[in-house]
């Protein structure tokens, strides 16, 4: 009953000073909105980076032939020719933590279709490669193991190749392209992937069965690298060790000898980006936190000014029988109401800003319930914390002096 009356008193008092109430609220609105928006943007950028890393395949393991040593001088990695197709097949058979594996051979070549030509590279791969790289065939089909066995002259091409050789939005499935002297039939077109985080065009690619490229174009038994996929992100290290073990065994290396190959995983890269985006989120959140703090100090400021300005009003209330506690509760209700309503509007505004950034920035931004809760709790705490001091000041006024105050 008593508290209901005090709520009435507080809401009347806020309603009679709408401008002041709104301005006080503005600090909290901006604070909460920035917390919401900053967290959403931080979360969005994290997702954005994660997506582009996982588009490379986060579970990927690359096995590169080692450097050759020529008279004591190490040449660059990949110069030796130690890896074979059979190494890849052995990995597939014997490494439990590896799910996909494909050897890769590469040949840069001039591609010709009718009167058009384009410089690109042809990759000879197993069809596991599609899964390792998260590639999907948009129109047509990928190639199969029998294509590989027969060294069939078929290929799957990326969108950039389509655009440059056949024109935009054409469907060249079934048509022929020539790579050097060899004609390939196009059996599938890859879904568009765009640039990766490093600026490489992932659509400028021609994929053909491994045996076709290796035998018909390169006439070699070597492979450029072997690419594999661990069963899950957690198993990358296990898979890596398994692979090293196996290849050392196959290459008959004694324990004293160095590896004649290098194994790299992508988890190293994604760790770096993960920590970068974490730092970014913390930075944004602390900026937002500071603005919320400033908003809280704004509340305290206005409430303090308001206690001084309303000294006479407080005197009147005390004179007609309000207890110190009643005045305290009234002022607390006022500041809590301001911070709560401010928090509410702030959440709305913050979501709106996040939505706009998502729409115009094209980021995968989402306002999480956690950030809404955080902002709300924080604004309520700010209201209570910064409302307390002015309220106590008001409650401790002496009625006679308060009434005499001009």
């Amino acid at each position, binding site marked *: 009953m008593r508290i209901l009356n005090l709520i009435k008193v507080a809401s009347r008092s806020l309603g009679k000073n709408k401008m002041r109430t709104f301005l006080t609220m503005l600090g909290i609105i901006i604070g909460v909105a920035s917390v919401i928006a900053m967290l959403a943007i931080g979360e969005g950028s994290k997702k954005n980076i994660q997506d582009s890393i996982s588009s490379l395949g986060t579970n990927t393991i690359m096995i590169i032939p080692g450097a050759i040593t020529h008279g004591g001088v190490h040449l660059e990695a990949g110069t030796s020719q130690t890896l074979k197709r059979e190494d890849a097949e052995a990995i597939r058979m014997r490494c439990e933590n590896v799910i996909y594996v494909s050897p890769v051979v590469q040949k840069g070549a001039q591609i010709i279709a009718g009167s058009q030509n384009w410089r690109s590279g042809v990759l000879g791969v197993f069809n596991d490669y599609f899964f390792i790289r998260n590639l999907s065939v948009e129109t047509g089909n990928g190639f199969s193991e029998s294509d590989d066995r027969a060294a069939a002259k078929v290929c799957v091409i990326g969108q950039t190749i389509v655009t440059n050789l056949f024109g935009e939005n054409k469907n060249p499935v079934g048509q022929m392209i020539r790579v050097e002297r060899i004609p390939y039939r196009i059996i599938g077109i890859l879904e568009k992937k765009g640039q990766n985080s490093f600026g490489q065009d992932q659509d400028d690619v021609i994929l053909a069965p491994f045996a076709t490229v290796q035998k018909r174009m390169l006439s070699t038994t070597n492979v450029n690298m072997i690419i594999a996929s661990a069963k899950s992100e957690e198993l990358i290290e296990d898979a890596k060790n398994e692979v090293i073990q196996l290849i050392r065994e196959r290459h008959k290396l004694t324990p004293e000898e160095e590896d004649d190959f290098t194994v790299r995983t992508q988890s190293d890269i994604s760790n770096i980006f993960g920590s970068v985006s974490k730092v970014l989120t913390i930075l944004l959140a602390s900026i937002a936190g500071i603005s919320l703090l400033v908003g809280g100090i704004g509340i305290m400021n206005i409430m303090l000014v308001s206690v001084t300005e309303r000294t006479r009003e407080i*005197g009147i209330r005390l004179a007609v*029988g309000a207890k110190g506690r009643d005045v305290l509760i009234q002022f607390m209700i006022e500041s809590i109401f301001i911070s709560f309503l401010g928090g509410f509007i702030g959440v709305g505004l913050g979501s709106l800003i996040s939505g706009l950034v998502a729409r115009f920035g094209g980021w995968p931004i989402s306002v999480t319930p956690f950030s809404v809760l955080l902002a709300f709790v924080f604004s309520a705490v700010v209201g209570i914390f910064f409302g307390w001091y002015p309220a106590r000041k008001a409650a401790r006024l002496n*009625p006679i002096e308060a009434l005499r105050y001009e």
Partner: protein
Amino acid sequence: MPAPLIAVKNLEKIYKMGEVEVHALCGISFDIYKKDFLAIMGASGSGKSTFMNIIGCLDHPSRGDFFLDGVNVSTMNKNELAELRNKKIGFIFQSFNILPRTSAVENVELPLLYNSSVGNKERRERAYNALKRVGLADRANSLPNQLSGGQQQRVAIARALINEPVVMLADEPTGNLDSKTSYEIMEIFQQLNEKGSTIVIVTHEPDIAQFALGNIIFKDGKIISNHPVVNRKTASSELIKLNVPVKEQAAA
């Protein structure tokens, strides 16, 4: 003689202004009975406002006892004093002290907002009744800036009335008003007194004091005179006298 409503015994109030001690009240004793209408007079600094603040339960005496309605108030704490102000005292100020931007009826119901035993509906009803008693029933929803000084003071009187106090205290209620409006206010006080209210006012103006039943004169913190008013005037007849010359001038 019935028991006094307010009994004051050897009341002293000492203010400390830095090093100097100021004796605002030096041993005041007297009684106020039910249905009294007293006017306290005296020069500035004679201690009358200090006295009013003490019997209005706004301040503690330094020494002495003060009984309100048979209860010793001088030993009470702040919250108990607030309770007494809320239930037993109606205070009226020189500068009206009504809340700005707040309608007349909301101003009047203010004391009852701090009294949890009165419900919403009863509170509104009593506020309208109090406004009716001071002749402002038709201005219930007006804001203070739409009311004249006299009307604002009547709102303040209604606010003092609403809790049916045992005593109404008015500190220079006519100090900010012209004489016609002053008489109108005193007319209300006289009517309330006739209907049984106990009223104590502080005033500078002897003509205002003539409307009371008894006059008390303060000097340097002491009562130097306490006498009933002879040839008591009624505010309504004084008001008519005030109007006569105006009418004659209008005729001329």
